[in-house]
């Protein structure tokens, strides 16, 4: 389509976003994904208000209520989605878990973005040896998978802060680890965009006018690279959430008394075939839908923004 696109859609900047928006809304799947995502976000933000129980209340976890099936099976109206092995209300736990997972996902990706943008801009703009070195680092970082990096980082963090401290810092650690592990994707995309933008006249013009490189990068080049960043951002959030879930599954994630969705699945895993399937299945479904939605949203954005991203 490349051949015609420029003929069909005006590059007029002002109306561009409204065009994209219109197109996006026209895409039913993407709209649905967006709606569900917004729903998730609202749930995450208002979890304390929505949750039927306060999870911080010492009475919240009552072993007496352990493993009650969801409302539609047990008929127990106190617990809409049933309770887990510790007697916690599944609905409340899942609401808070979603909040945690999303927070970790979004914050981690924010770190990735910040890091990726800085490195990508520097690398693309300065070029030469710096570029070569940074991209090689990115290669190495990419080839060691997130999981490996995370395991090593988490071990180091545990060493630095000690076990008890780690417990309280777990969320921060996870954000940092996942944030630090996946910057290369952003860096590469930004770099590619910068290289493309650098060719264009306005950058030369800006340089001739004596504007500092930093200003050129942030004021002039960066805004033009935002489209691919937005797409990766969406997809990366889902990746970050999955990474957190996998780390929790390996026992490196959130502690059991402050569970993210991944930790919930991990804890519930042994109940999968024990009859109390809801302990594992409900958080799994919640997680899978969230990730699916993020991916669909990413696909939608990709279709409608049509950026060149570094593929992964």
């Amino acid at each position, binding site marked *: 389509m490349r051949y*015609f696109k420029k*003929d*069909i859609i*005006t590059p007029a900047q002002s109306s561009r976003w409204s065009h994209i928006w219109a197109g996006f809304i*026209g895409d039913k799947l993407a709209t649905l994904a967006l709606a569900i995502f917004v729903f998730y976000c609202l749930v995450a933000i208002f979890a304390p208000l929505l949750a039927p129980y306060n999870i911080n209340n010492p009475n919240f976890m009552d072993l007496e209520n352990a493993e009650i099936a969801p409302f539609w099976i047990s008929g127990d109206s106190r617990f809409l989605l049933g309770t887990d092995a510790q007697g916690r209300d599944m609905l409340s736990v899942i609401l808070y878990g979603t909040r945690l997972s999303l927070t970790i996902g979004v914050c981690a990706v924010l770190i990735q973005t910040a890091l990726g943008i800085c490195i990508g801009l520097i690398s693309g703009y300065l070029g030469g040896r710096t570029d070569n070195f940074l991209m090689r680092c990115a290669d190495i970082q990419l080839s060691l998978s997130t999981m490996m990096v995370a395991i090593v980082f988490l071990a180091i963090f545990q060493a630095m802060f000690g076990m008890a401290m780690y417990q309280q810092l777990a969320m921060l650690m996870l954000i940092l680890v996942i944030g630090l592990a996946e910057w290369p994707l952003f860096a590469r995309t930004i770099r590619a965009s910068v290289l493309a933008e650098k060719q264009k006249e306005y950058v030369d013009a800006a340089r001739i006018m004596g504007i500092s490189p930093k200003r050129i990068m942030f004021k002039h080049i960066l805004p033009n690279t935002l489209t691919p960043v937005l797409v990766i951002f969406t997809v990366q959030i889902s990746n970050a959430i999955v990474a957190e879930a996998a780390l929790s599954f390996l026992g490196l994630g959130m502690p059991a008394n402050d569970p993210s969705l991944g930790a919930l699945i991990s804890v519930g895993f042994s109940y999968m075939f024990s009859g109390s399937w809801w302990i594992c299945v409900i958080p799994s479904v919640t997680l899978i839908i969230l990730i699916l939605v993020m991916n669909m949203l990413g696909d939608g954005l990709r279709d409608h923004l049509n950026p060149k991203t570094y593929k992964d």
Partner: protein
Amino acid sequence: MNLLSVSNLNVNFHLKGQDLAALIDVSFTLNRGERVAIVGESGAGKSVLGFSIVNLIDKPGYIKSGSIKLDNKEITKMTRPQLQEVRGKRIAMIFQDPMMTLNPVLTIGAQLVEAIRSHTRISFKDAKNIAIEKLHSVQIASPEKRFHQYPHELSGGMRQRVIIATVLLLNPDIIIADEPTTALDVTIQAEIIQLLLDICRNNSMALLLISHDLGVVSRIAERTIVMYAGRVVEEGPTLEIINDPQHPYTQGLLNALPQMALPGQRLNQIVGSMPPLNERPTGCAFHPRCPYATDQCRQQQPGFINSGVSTVACFMVEDMLTDTNSDYDEEID
């Protein structure tokens, strides 16, 4: 009989729930050995027209109605194998950017030989000989060496020559050249144009040149078709059109050319830009940019009339012809 005749061709794009017209009621003919140019700004639908002729429009574009006849055979109704026969063998295309037109991972030779062998049953060796001969004929030095090279090892001009050689392989009746020189250096442009011209003349091939460059057009084409916003607005012999453009848009295009401007006079760019597909105005699509626009232009689509110089779709010309005021004519000049 016309070699190629396009009549009332409508091509639409199905975009985001809207059905947008990219070509509206386009008709023209091409005779054997004739060289015709299609000019217009980008977005006018020239390229769409070029691709429609060999039925190569990508989704979401499609031919809505109209006919394209090659030797009286309807191309729009052809099956895939029939189209494959037409493409390359009867109608060949040259693209705008030679850097992008050759497959980067295949050797020049492979890309040449496959073109021959997909149409004629001959051995690889014979095909190779033909290919080398053609490379030679487009003035490529040491064609045997080039044959085994990859596109990235060649310069832009060289690649365009290779493409022309590819096109020549099967001796087609029509060459559609879509802005064949736009992406090249000025010096090479001239060479390539000359090459195209020579080839068409020597082999009596018809050429459909798609270009926005009236300078190039004036050197090659015998006849010119001017397009704006998916419609043909003026058609006639190139020389006449250049000397006496009828449609305000054609005038605007010509005024924008440096060599057309009088010394000391500023270049006259047409104000504004081509509207995108989804914002096509009513009436004559050119009216928002036309200095002579009237209410009639805003509401109605003008029909074609023969101005004597060319066939043109403009109410102003129509009015003038009905007035038959020759003095007024001269004033405009």
